[in-house]
C-alpha cells in the first residue's frame, strides 16, 4: 500500500509539473501581456518599465526557474491588473464555482444513476427509449446552447427565473440545471450499459437460482459490479468541479473561477491563468486518485493488484 501511494504521488506530482510547465511556456510564447494591459497606444518607455517591473524582460528560462522556485515557497505570483496575489484572487472565486458545480454534481448523480438503472431493468420499454433519447440529446447539445435555450424559455418567455447574475439562490437554478443535464445524460447511458452488461453475467443467474428476491439481486449483486465502470465517469465529474463550469459561468455571468480564467486569458494576466491551471490540474489529479481508491474498495480483484505495488 505504501509503495502504491508513493508511486501514485510521484505520478500526480509529475502530471501537475507538466501542466504547469506547459501552461507557462504557451502563455509566454503566445502574446505580450505588457502590450495588452498597457494598451496598444502606450508610450514605449511605459511598456518597457512594465516589462522590467514584472520581470518580462528576462529570458523565458530565467522567468520559468523563478516561477517554479516561488511555487515551492507558496508564492503563486500577483495579478498584473491590480497587483493582488493571484492565489487570493482565485481562492475568492472558488465558493461561487462550487455553488454551481456541487449542486450540479448532485443533480447528475441523482438523476443519471437511477435513470440508467431503470432503463437497464426495463430494456426496450417505452421509458428506456425515452431515457436514452433524452440522454443522447442531453450530451450532444453543447452547454452554451442548452443554457441559452433555458434562458429563452424560463427567463425571457416565462419570466420565472433570472437570466444571469448571482444575487440569490434562484439565480443558480438555470446554470445548475444546464450543468447537470449533460452530466446526468452521460451518467445515465454509462449506468445503463454497465447494468446491462452485469445483468447478463452468470453470477446474477446464480443469485436468482439461490432464491434472492429480484430487488436484492439488483441492489446487492448487480449494482456493486456495475459501479466499477460508472465510478470512472463520476471521477471525471469530480475532477471538473473547479474547471467544468467555464462556459456556463460565462453564459450566466456567474463570477466563478471559470469567468476569472476567461478574463485572465484575454488579458494575458499570466499569474492568474497559471494559478487557475495549477488548481485545475490539482483537482483532476486528486479526483483520479480518489477513483483509484474507489476501484480498490469496490473491486477486490483490483485491490490485490494495487497492494502488490503495480
Amino acid at each position, binding site marked *: 500500500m505504501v509503495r502504491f501511494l508513493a508511486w501514485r504521488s510521484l505520478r500526480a506530482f509529475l502530471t501537475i509539473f507538466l501542466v504547469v510547465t506547459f501552461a507557462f511556456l504557451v502563455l509566454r510564447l503566445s502574446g505580450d501581456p505588457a502590450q495588452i494591459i498597457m494598451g496598444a497606444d502606450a508610450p514605449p518607455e511605459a511598456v518597457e518599465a512594465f516589462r522590467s517591473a514584472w520581470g518580462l524582460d528576462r529570458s523565458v528560462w530565467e522567468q520559468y526557474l523563478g516561477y517554479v522556485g516561488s511555487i515551492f515557497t507558496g508564492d503563486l505570483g500577483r495579478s498584473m491588473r491590480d497587483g493582488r496575489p493571484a492565489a487570493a484572487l482565485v481562492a475568492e472565486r472558488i465558493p461561487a464555482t462550487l455553488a454551481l458545480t456541487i449542486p450540479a454534481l448532485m443533480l447528475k448523480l441523482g438523476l443519471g444513476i437511477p435513470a440508467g438503472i431503470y432503463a437497464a431493468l426495463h430494456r426496450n420499454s417505452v421509458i428506456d427509449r425515452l431515457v436514452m433519447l433524452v440522454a443522447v440529446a442531453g450530451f450532444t447539445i453543447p452547454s452554451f446552447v442548452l443554457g441559452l435555450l433555458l434562458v429563452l424559455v424560463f427567463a425571457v418567455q416565462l419570466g420565472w427565473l433570472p437570466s444571469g447574475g448571482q444575487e440569490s439562490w434562484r439565480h443558480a437554478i438555470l446554470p445548475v440545471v444546464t450543468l447537470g443535464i449533460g452530466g446526468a445524460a452521460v451518467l445515465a447511458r454509462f449506468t445503463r450499459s454497465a447494468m446491462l452488461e452485469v445483468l447478463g453475467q*452468470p*453470477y446474477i443467474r446464480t443469485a*436468482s437460482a439461490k*432464491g*434472492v428476491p429480484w430487488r436484492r439481486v439488483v441492489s446487492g449483486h448487480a449494482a456493486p*459490479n456495475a459501479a466499477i465502470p460508472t465510478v470512472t465517469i463520476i471521477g471525471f465529474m469530480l475532477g471538473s468541479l473547479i474547471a467544468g463550469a467555464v462556459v456556463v459561468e460565462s453564459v450566466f455571468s456567474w463570477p466563478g473561477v471559470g469567468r476569472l480564467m476567461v478574463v485572465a486569458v484575454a488579458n494575458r494576466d499570466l499569474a492568474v491563468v497559471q494559478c487557475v491551471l495549477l488548481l485545475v490540474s490539482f483537482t483532476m489529479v486528486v479526483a483520479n486518485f480518489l477513483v483509484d481508491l474507489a476501484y480498490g474498495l469496490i*473491486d477486490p480483484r483490483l485491490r490485490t493488484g494495487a497492494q502488490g505495488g503495480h
Partner: protein
Amino acid sequence: MNLVEISGLSVSFGAAPALRGIDIAVKPGEALGMVGESGCGKSVTWLAALGLLPGKARVSGSVTLNGEEILHAEQRKLDRLRGGRVAMIFQDPSSSLNPVHRIGRQVSEALTLHRGLTGNAARAEAKRLFELVGIPDAQRRLDAYPHELSGGQNQRVMIAMALAGRPELLIADEPTTALDVTIQAQILDLLNELRREMGMALVLISHDLGVISETCERVAVMYAGRIVEEAPVQSLFAAPAHPYTRGLMAALPPIDGPRQKLNAIPGSVPEPGNLPPGCAFAPRCGLARAACSAGVPSDVMLGAGHRAACVVAQDAMVPA
C-alpha cells in the same frame, strides 16, 4: 409420487423454438442424467422450470414440485423454492460467483434466505458446509473472494451454497465441463456422496455420456428441443434404441482395443428456427426413411422405463 414432473414444457425465444414439449419426471432421491449436444435444450429445460429464463422467453406447459404447479408461479413463491427445495449449480463456477462479495457471505446469504440464519450462526454453518464439500482451511476461506480460488474450489463453493437450503433436488448444469479432468472426477464423486448422504435427488446435465453413466440411474437423451430416448442407464447402454443415442455412443472412444478413428455423427444440429419436418434427426440419420419426415415420431415403450421417439425403433418392436 414424483418429486418433479415436467409435462409438455415448451420454450421459444422469439420465433425460434428451444423446447418442443418436454415430458420428464424425477423421483425423490434419484439421479437423472440429461444428455445431448449443446443447444439441444437440456439446460433450458431446468432454467425454464425454475423461472430463470430471461423475460423474452415464452414458456408453456406444466412443471410440478410435489404435485404443486410451479411454472409461472408468483415471484415470492419461486424465490422460496429456488435455493430452498431446488438448488442449481452451473458450468463455469468462477463466473457464477459474484466477484465483489466474499464467498462466505455468498453462502451465508442462502442460509439467511432459507434457514433464517444470520451473523455468527450463518458463518458457522457456512464453515460446516465448506468442510462438508471438502474445502481445505474452511474458516479462512470464508473471507476469500472467488478470484482467489481455483475453478474446482469455486465449484465446491457453489455446491456448498446449493446445499445451504437443504434442497430436495440439486440440478447440476455441466458442473465439470470447465474443470480439469482430475478435478472433474473429484466433483462427481462429491456430488454422488452428498446425494446419498442427504437423500436428495440429482439432475446431472452433461454432454458427456461417460460422466452421466458413472453418476446417474436414469438417462434422458435430448435432441433439438425434444427428449428422443429415456431409459435406465443399464438398458440404455445395453440396447440404445434411438439412432442418435447410438451415434453418441459410437462417438465415445473405446477404452481398450486398437486405436481407431472415432465415429462422428455426420452433419450438424439443425438451427432452432429451421427444423426439418418430422424427426429433427432424420437428415443426419443413416436409417431414415420416408415415414421419418412425415410427422414427429411418438414415444415407443421398449421395456421397463425405456422409451424412444423413433420410427425405426417402432418397427423393431413389431416382431417382438
